[in-house]
């Protein structure tokens, strides 16, 4: 029997205190979406099914009981912490869902400096944790642009990556152990060890599950020495974008490990740097012990200057620019005002590919978007996370919303651009998602993304969430139009 909104709230009231359950209409509407529907969010137009309640859990036990309750009654549960999601992962795909919020579980449990690891609950804000660690000369090494907003549970659940990933890796390289809870109430603790070969690495069932398999309640991350006094910044302009990718490849293939390695195309660079003058921009940062940063910077400088059309820029410019890159509540409020005033909206889509196809992905996606989508005011992007075998592409695009009701913006513009990017990435053999998660929007391309390995994902879903109550529509869509996958 399908429970009513009132019955769900009543049932939840038997699990947690009344003040942990929010049924205020405005909160429920705001909890029905995330920043994927930024235009709707800005205009306070809500097109998604409205949840029954937002539940603020304070303990593992409460998360367990709420999940079991939802599992028993077939109620969709959307796990969340810092609410910085931008791919639809927090949309409530079903009427009367439960939004299970872990932001109240915000205790740092242990800073273990000897074993170089920190254990914290899912609701610990990354900014607070890292600021606290830095005062002790330590860092998690994880610094996504959403750092002022994001919390640990969400970062792990979305397989987040930070701006210093080229040295420290993504969150998957940092997570040592964790506690997760499955919809049947099973609480699983994965112990903290440096490495093991006892079968499959089960951390990866939880890392990147996007709330579609389990709820992450506790995380243990690696720690690193924080030595900003040794940081060295490098910046260059480079005439040709393909050469820019080759320059990045050169740095990685030669075995250098800068913490940051970025390539901006001219369009994206124009948003950040006056001095770029319609050229592409390369940026590096070397981090770590002084001897290593010096050698890293010298090596990178030598490699980059070996390419044609390269000009060096003042490193101080790069250092100062980087200090102001993160996004917090103030920037979001400012952006909202600008969208309302101009109807101009900026969005990003991040993908990845091996060195032999990333330029083609970049070039063909940009070209097609400009040819096929109206009212574009900017189309470009940057690479910000490089690996030995390839890199990511972070498409950045802006468009004016013209002659279009708020609720139709998503299908006229955003979903179309997403579709083009996904099609081009699939065509060239890259991945349609680098670090934001599939969410609900790009979930519509999950079959193309996974190919024959979709069997493994589907089996995981069926095994751990047999009733399908965990974040319906995320990872695997619930309503899918095969001919028009952007219509949802």
């Amino acid at each position, binding site marked *: 029997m399908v429970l009513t909104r009132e019955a769900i709230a009543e049932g939840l009231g038997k699990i947690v205190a009344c003040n942990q359950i929010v049924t205020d209409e405005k909160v429920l509407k705001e909890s029905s979406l995330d920043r994927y529907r930024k235009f709707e969010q800005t205009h306070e137009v809500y097109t998604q099914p409205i949840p029954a309640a937002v539940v603020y859990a304070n303990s593992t036990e409460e998360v367990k009981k709420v999940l079991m309750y939802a599992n028993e009654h077939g109620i969709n549960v959307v796990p969340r912490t810092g609410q910085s999601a931008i791919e639809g992962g927090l949309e409530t795909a079903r009427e009367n869902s439960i939004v299970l919020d872990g932001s109240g579980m915000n205790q740092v449990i242990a800073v273990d400096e000897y074993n170089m690891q920190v254990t914290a609950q899912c609701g610990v804000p990354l900014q607070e944790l890292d600021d606290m660690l830095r005062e002790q000369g330590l860092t998690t090494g994880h610094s996504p642009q959403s750092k002022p907003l994001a919390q640990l549970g969400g970062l792990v659940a979305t397989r987040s990556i930070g701006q210093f990933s080229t040295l420290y890796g993504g969150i998957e390289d940092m997570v040592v152990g964790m506690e997760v809870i499955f919809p049947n109430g099973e609480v699983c603790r994965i112990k903290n060890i440096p490495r093991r070969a006892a079968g499959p690495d089960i951390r990866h069932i939880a890392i990147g599950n996007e709330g579609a398999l389990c709820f992450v309640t506790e995380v243990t991350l690696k720690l690193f020495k924080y030595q900003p006094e040794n940081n060295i910044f490098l910046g260059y302009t480079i005439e040709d974008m393909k050469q820019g990718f080759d320059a990045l490849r050169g740095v990685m293939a030669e075995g250098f490990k800068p913490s940051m390695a970025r390539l901006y195309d001219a369009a994206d660079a124009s948003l950040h*740097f*006056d001095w770029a003058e319609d050229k592409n921009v390369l940026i590096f940062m070397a981090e770590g012990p002084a001897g290593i940063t010096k050698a890293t910077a010298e090596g990178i400088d030598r490699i980059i200057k070996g390419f044609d059309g390269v000009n060096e820029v003042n490193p*101080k410019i790069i250092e*100062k620019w980087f*200090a102001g890159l993160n996004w917090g509540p103030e920037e979001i409020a400012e952006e909202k005002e600008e969208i*309302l005033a101009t109807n101009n909206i900026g969005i990003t889509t991040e993908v990845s590919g091996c060195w032999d196809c990333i330029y083609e992905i970049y070039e063909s996606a940009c070209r097609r978007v400009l040819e096929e989508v109206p009212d574009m005011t900017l*189309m470009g992007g940057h690479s910000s996370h490089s690996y030995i075998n390839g890199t990511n592409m972070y498409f950045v695009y802006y468009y*004016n919303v013209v002659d279009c009701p708020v609720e139709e913006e998503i299908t006229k513009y955003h979903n179309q651009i997403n579709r083009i990017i996904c099609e081009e990435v699939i065509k060239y053999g890259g991945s349609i998602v680098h670090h934001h998660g599939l969410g609900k929007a790009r979930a519509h391309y999950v079959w193309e993304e996974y190919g024959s390995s979709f069997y493994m994902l589907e089996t995981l879903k069926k095994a751990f969430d047999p009733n399908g109550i965990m974040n319906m529509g995320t990872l695997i869509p619930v309503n899918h139009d095969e001919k028009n996958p952007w219509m949802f």
Partner: protein
Amino acid sequence: MRRILGCFKVIPDLELLSEEDWIADDNNLVDTSFVKSTWNVFDESALELMLRLSEQSESLNEPFSMDAVTIGDKISEKYLKTLHALGIDQAVRIECRESIQFSPEIVSGLLTEYIRQKGKQDIIVMGTKTADGSSGKVPQLTAEKLGYPCVTQVIAIEPMEQNNIKITNITDTGLCIQTICPPCVLAVGEAPGTCLSVPTLKARMNTKAKPVEVYTAGQLLKGNLSDIQKETVLTELTAVDEKRCGKVICDGSLEEQIEILYQSYLKGKV
């Protein structure tokens, strides 16, 4: 056709400066060379109001031609190109190599000479002040030199018949709505919802070849910049302590602390 001129300044994005960057050198200048530039926010509003006025005027069959002028370096041309793509007819940059950040007399002098020499304007709009100089004098001084009336703290401009315009501005006693017969200078203040429109890439491509006119200060002024009489001289720059006074409530339980907060601060305010 009536003419409207938007005057604007491109400034360093001061929000990107950290506290430690606010160090004045021997010439009383703060090094902002490493931060990105941006529109001066009041000028941005002025330009947007100009665009809207022009668009609305077309329905009255009394269109405006729109020009834009800035005093700045080569970086300003990127902004003028944006204005071209938004429909500005003539985009002008006045090159001035000397620092005029705190010299409203020179800024207004250059603007006045440009207007006198390059063609009469019916309406001149600009921001009430800039974020970096912040003298708030340029609109009034320009109006005085041209002999035009000046309306300050403007937040809306609408076209009316018979070449008049309706101005809404903020005064000490509230909103003032008045009908004005140009010529006039309008100093735009905090006008809500007036971020500058964003041109499409197609519009940028279509206007890419349109040239920016460049004049030097020397071409516009007969004498030297130093001949212009300054009413004020910058002698020192010191940081303003903007910390708000506060009190940390430590004593008692959480409930008691909330009660203290309510009684001592919130009561009567919420």
